């Protein structure tokens, strides 16, 4: 007899979460597949499925699509994508996105707009609220919103979601999540997270890093952000500020960084530096991503200045990655945002520096990949973060949200 072990109720909650998480991340699955994958017997799966069905989280139905074989096909457990959803917000330097993402990770609907650099931060909140409201209005009548998360390029204190630092983007409000939650009036809090941390989460759950529990995600917007997944979890550090790879100093006394220091990775490989090396101006009508792509394309077409700019930036990036490989021994390093373009355009330089700078043992196996989720790493990560609560305790959370009058 075990003392102080988990109660029946704890076990059930854990199993419900595990099953829901499985179909959320891996898609519809038959009871047989679930039993095998989760290591539970069929009758347990049946009971759990019944509970989740009653809560309106999953549905059992015949499989869709081709591949029908002889005999009776077995039912699959499918997440209720249109009835259970989250709101995901991405506030980038050059773009704003709001999406309604269904259980199972389907983007049901999205609103996207460009953001002018230096636009009035006071307007930001209004734009986000209007976008979210429009999405919520289009949801099915019995649909329920189970979470909301906003990703943005800055440092956020985990304990209370306060924005501590975001030099490349003034959002005008340190408690952006609270303000957004109040204006939305859906009765759910809005979490605020660092965009690259969300990117790491997204690539780990749904992108290049599925199955890899030690990975590093590097995100280029104007600045450079990072997210570290160690043992399958996001490394936040003591207060949630961890993973600021962009402010790793790689060139002492080097270029001035927006953070006030000199020679940070961001200062040596960020968008402004690449453009400056290439002799190009930051232009108000060409969003940063396009400007970076233009340099990569010019280098490919033989433009000497562009080529040299990419090589300089590539060297520093290679040095940064070599340090990360030595310190964390990641199985995978993922390049997202503008760093995807820079990686593809300067891979020879980046990997050459790694070959001479990183220790052979951790270097040998590390995979370098571009983000499988393309431009949506932050958005997908925000959605995953927002689903975390319902996945941890599915029935309880749904019951609470479906009966809002019971909440004080």
């Amino acid at each position, binding site marked *: 007899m075990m003392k102080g072990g988990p109660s029946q109720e704890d076990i059930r909650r854990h199993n419900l979460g595990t099953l829901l998480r499985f179909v959320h991340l891996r898609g519809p699955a038959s009871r047989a597949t679930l039993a095998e994958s989760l290591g539970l017997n069929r009758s347990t799966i049946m009971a759990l499925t019944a509970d989740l069905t009653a809560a309106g989280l999953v549905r059992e139905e015949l499989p869709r699509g*081709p591949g029908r074989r002889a005999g009776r096909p077995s039912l699959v457990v499918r997440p209720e994508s249109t009835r259970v959803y989250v709101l995901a917000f991405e506030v980038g330097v050059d773009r704003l996105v709001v999406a309604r993402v269904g259980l199972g990770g389907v983007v049901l609907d999205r609103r996207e707009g460009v953001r002018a650099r230096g636009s009035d931060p006071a307007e930001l909140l209004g734009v986000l609220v209007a976008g979210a409201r429009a999405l919520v209005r289009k949801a099915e009548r019995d649909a329920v919103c189970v979470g909301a998360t906003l990703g943005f390029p800055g440092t956020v204190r985990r304990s209370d979601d306060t924005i501590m630092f975001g030099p490349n983007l003034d959002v005008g409000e340190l408690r952006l999540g609270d303000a957004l939650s109040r204006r939305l009036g859906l009765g759910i809090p809005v979490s605020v997270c660092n965009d690259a941390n969300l990117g790491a989460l997204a690539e780990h759950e749904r992108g290049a890093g599925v199955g890899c529990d030690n990975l590093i995600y590097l995100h280029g917007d104007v600045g450079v952000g990072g997210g570290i997944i160690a043992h399958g979890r996001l490394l936040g550090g003591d207060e949630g500020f961890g993973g600021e790879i962009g402010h790793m100093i790689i060139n002492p006394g080097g270029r001035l960084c927006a953070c006030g220091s000199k020679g940070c990775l961001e200062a040596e490989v960020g968008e402004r530096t690449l453009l400056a090396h290439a002799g190009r101006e930051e232009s108000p009508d060409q969003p940063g991503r396009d400007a970076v792509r233009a340099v990569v*394309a010019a280098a490919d077409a033989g433009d000497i200045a562009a080529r040299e700019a990419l090589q300089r930036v590539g060297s520093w990036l290679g040095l940064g990655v070599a340090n990360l490989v030595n310190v964390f021994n990641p199985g995978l390093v993922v390049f997202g945002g503008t760093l995807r373009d820079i990686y593809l355009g300067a891979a020879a330089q980046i990997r050459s520096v790694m070959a001479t700078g990183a220790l*052979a043992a951790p270097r040998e196996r590390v995979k370098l990949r571009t983000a499988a989720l393309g431009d949506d790493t932050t958005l997908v990560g925000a959605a995953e973060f927002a689903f975390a609560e319902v996945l941890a305790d599915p029935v309880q959370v749904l019951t609470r949200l479906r009966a809002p009058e019971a909440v004080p």
Partner: protein
Amino acid sequence: MSVTPALDLRGIEKSFGSVTVLHDVAFSAYPGEVTALVGDNGAGKTTLVKCIGGIHAFDAGEYRFEGRPVRIGSPREATRLGIEIVHQDLALCENLDIVQNLFLGRERRRGLTLDETAMEEMARSTLSGLAVRTMGSVRQRIATLSGGQRQTVAIARAVLWDSKVVILDEPAAALGIAQTQQVLEVVRRLADKGLAVVLISHNMNDVFAVSDRIAAMYLGRMVAQVRTSDVTHRQVVELITSGASGELGLRR
């Protein structure tokens, strides 16, 4: 290396008349990896690939496929083993649509007749499993697709038929940068699915971006097969242009 190579060639010799084009060539490609095959113009890359694919018969040498010695007398035999080659002059039919191209010559398989809906669905899911951006209707004619999209369709054919080895001979040569990048990502994903991929390219950024190994040819010889993580750009360029770089390559 304990993993059995998907392709393992040794001592390959090939002459056209009195001209010897491949001398004692060794070459391996592993499942789950991209092997970049590099070398100057005329080094013998395409000839080697055509020997692998059964288009040319080689004069001497050993050819193992998944560890077994094989004799490949025709392209059809290579295809049957699961070796798919995407030649630079893509063998796609311009006037047919995507689905028709994907299923060309294989509409029936193992006695199973596929209906149009099932073929469309398979085409769609194969393509969406490969490309980040969708391709639009699978009923578009090939003639209406961009170069990058055509490459993707050619690659999709390899995936759809459960190939073990996919060889791409300069897939990016005629493409713009955005399309090239997309093809590179598809190539990488293909290897990550477990296939052995061989990529011929003259672009060192492309080679370093996606390869796990680099096989360098020089004047008809294989001068080095190395792990990409162990070499620098400069070393690879030296191997290509002079057949040696420090400890690597031809002994002098």
